[in-house]
């Protein structure tokens, strides 16, 4: 087992004829993900890396039975692509696109809720269940199958963490990059619950960032609902107030959403927090004993 993606994942790549879409479609397929089709309006009937391309998600779903979709379309088209996937009955959408207007996402959310579509992202690196399915832009080679569930608001920092785990022989059930945008799909609470319910996952790593109060809410949720051990790391401990650090989320303003507060919130509910990334493997080993 694992969460969200596995060997039953039938993946569609929206924007498959673009630079990133075609590159990563190939990478995902090479990893072993069941990439059943791609969508690119006007390119229907062609193939990319042997993957059939369709004009609409609806046609692609009809022909392939796809249940998951990954979105590489340009930012200003991303909301529409997400809606198209949802309308066509796709149950899980992963939006890689970066720079999606916030109000586009605000308008998308109620429709996804109505249709029961799960969304990860936008502005996220995707997710992987090692040896089962890679749905995203993560470098597959650094992951190792195992029992740690990982979720993160950052992309490359996730790789760094995974690299530390894998180097120390600690494998992962599923690693999810949830993205750093102000309005995004699945977040800590939903993923914590999924990992809690996943028999393969024995411990959870939560990688947070400054800004917002999602980590504080996660801490409270862990106290109330999660019995599996959780280890955390917060990026941005040294960030100067009022500076925007790349992710829309990573901005500190007037004393709320600081790393210090988040670390305190976790420690208060018994979640161990790594001071530097390299402490994570040791902490995980401790809690898994």
């Amino acid at each position: 087992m694992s969460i969200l993606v596995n060997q039953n994942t039938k993946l569609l790549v929206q924007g498959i004829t673009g630079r990133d879409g075609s590159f990563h479609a190939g990478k995902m397929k090479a990893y072993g993900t069941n990439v059943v089709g791609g969508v690119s309006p006007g390119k229907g009937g062609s193939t990319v890396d042997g993957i059939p391309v369709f004009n609409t998600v609806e046609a692609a779903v009809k022909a392939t039975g796809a249940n998951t979709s990954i979105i590489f379309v340009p930012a200003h088209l991303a909301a529409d692509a997400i809606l198209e996937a949802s309308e066509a009955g796709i149950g899980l959408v992963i939006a890689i696109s970066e720079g999606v207007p916030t109000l586009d996402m605000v308008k998308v959310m109620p429709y996804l809720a109505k249709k029961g579509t799960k969304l990860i992202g936008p502005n996220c690196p995707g997710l992987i269940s090692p040896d089962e399915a890679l749905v995203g832009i993560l470098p597959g080679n650094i992951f190792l199958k195992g029992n740690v569930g990982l979720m993160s608001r950052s992309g490359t920092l996730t790789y760094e963490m995974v690299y530390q785990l894998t180097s120390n022989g600690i494998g992962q059930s599923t690693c999810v990059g949830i993205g750093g945008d102000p309005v995004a799909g699945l977040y800590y609470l939903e993923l914590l619950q999924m990992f809690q319910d996943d028999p393969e996952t024995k411990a959870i790593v939560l990688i947070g960032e400054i800004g917002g109060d999602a980590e504080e809410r996660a801490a409270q949720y862990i106290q109330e609902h999660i019995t599996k051990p959780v280890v955390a790391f917060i990026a941005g401990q040294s960030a100067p107030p009022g500076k925007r650090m790349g992710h829309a989320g990573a901005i500190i303003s007037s004393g709320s959403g600081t790393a210090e507060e988040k670390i305190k919130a976790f420690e208060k509910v018994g979640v161990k927090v790594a001071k530097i990334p390299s402490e994570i493997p040791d902490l995980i080993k401790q809690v898994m004993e």
Partner: protein
Amino acid sequence: MKIHEYQAKEIFSRYLIPVTNEVVCYTVEEAVAAADKLGLPVVVKAQVLAGGRGKAGGVKLARTKQDVPEMAGKILGMDIKGYTVEKILIAQGVKFSSEFYVGLTIDRNSKSVIFMASSEGGVEIEEVAKDNPDAIHKFVIDPDLGMTPFLARKIAFALFSDFNLVKQGADLFQKLYRIFMDTDSSLVEINPLVITEEGKLLALDGKMNFDDNALFRQSAIEALNEPTEDELKEIDAKEKGLTYIRLDGSIGCMVNGAGLAMATLDLIKYFGGEPANFLDIGGSSNPQKVIDAMNLILSDKNVKVVMINIFGGITRCDDVARGLIIALDKIKVEVPIVVRLSGTNSKEGLEILKEANLPIVETMSQAAQKAIELCK
């Protein structure tokens, strides 16, 4: 993106929200003329893209004819949080009874726009939030419905008891929401919103921030942008696909990914160093980016060492290495460089760097420590 108070109020005006009579002035002479036109008293307000103008002495009430040139002269040229005051607002003094706060922003938890209202206006709303959170009413706006008349009324009833004010408020709140949506705002605030002696609602101050990701469809808003020199550098970087923020230290950083970049700064601080910048080279693998990034880092004369920390996902390590070689060939780099490369195509990348005889370390921690050492 931020705009000035007077620009926010110009937008309010276009939506028929009542604002104070006021004139933007660039000189003391203009200020005097404006005050003559508006009549005393007037409020002289620094127009800078920073909060806390009042505390910094950037807002003064001019009661007499002599006050105006004196205060305008004092405020023009003043430095507020690193911003030089280049224009001031001369606003007609208004007699009012109560001060309210109203604002719209994005609520991450409900994934919606949220309306905040408080009868404790006129002060920093963050302070109200801390000291008396119950004094702030919050209304989540259903994205499918928008600001319905009934919701606007409900908010207004929460603030006002006089039905005449309720009607004015409900109308104003609907307009404010329309402004937020029409302009892809991330924040719209009126603080304070006051009741004048005539029983009319009036926006005494205004604040608007915008979603940078939506500026491509908001050309009228984008045209209002007045970036500082540091921000121009950041914008220039952004156009090259880089996110750059200048800091005060001496260790230049080039990292891919915002989270990893933040963690890199944290690590440098953790080991006792001071980073010179935040620099995220983003998620693509274009060698030109590395050249641009290196130029950007070295444009800061405080930089004594450059630490490159790349973890390859979408960014391929070999591209980074190749870019680095080209960059070092083109730019005279007189400071030492520490390189750490992992992830997609890292082997090929390391191979390339070895040939160029660049110092390579294995982990982030090592890289940070090495950079601090070289800095001394």
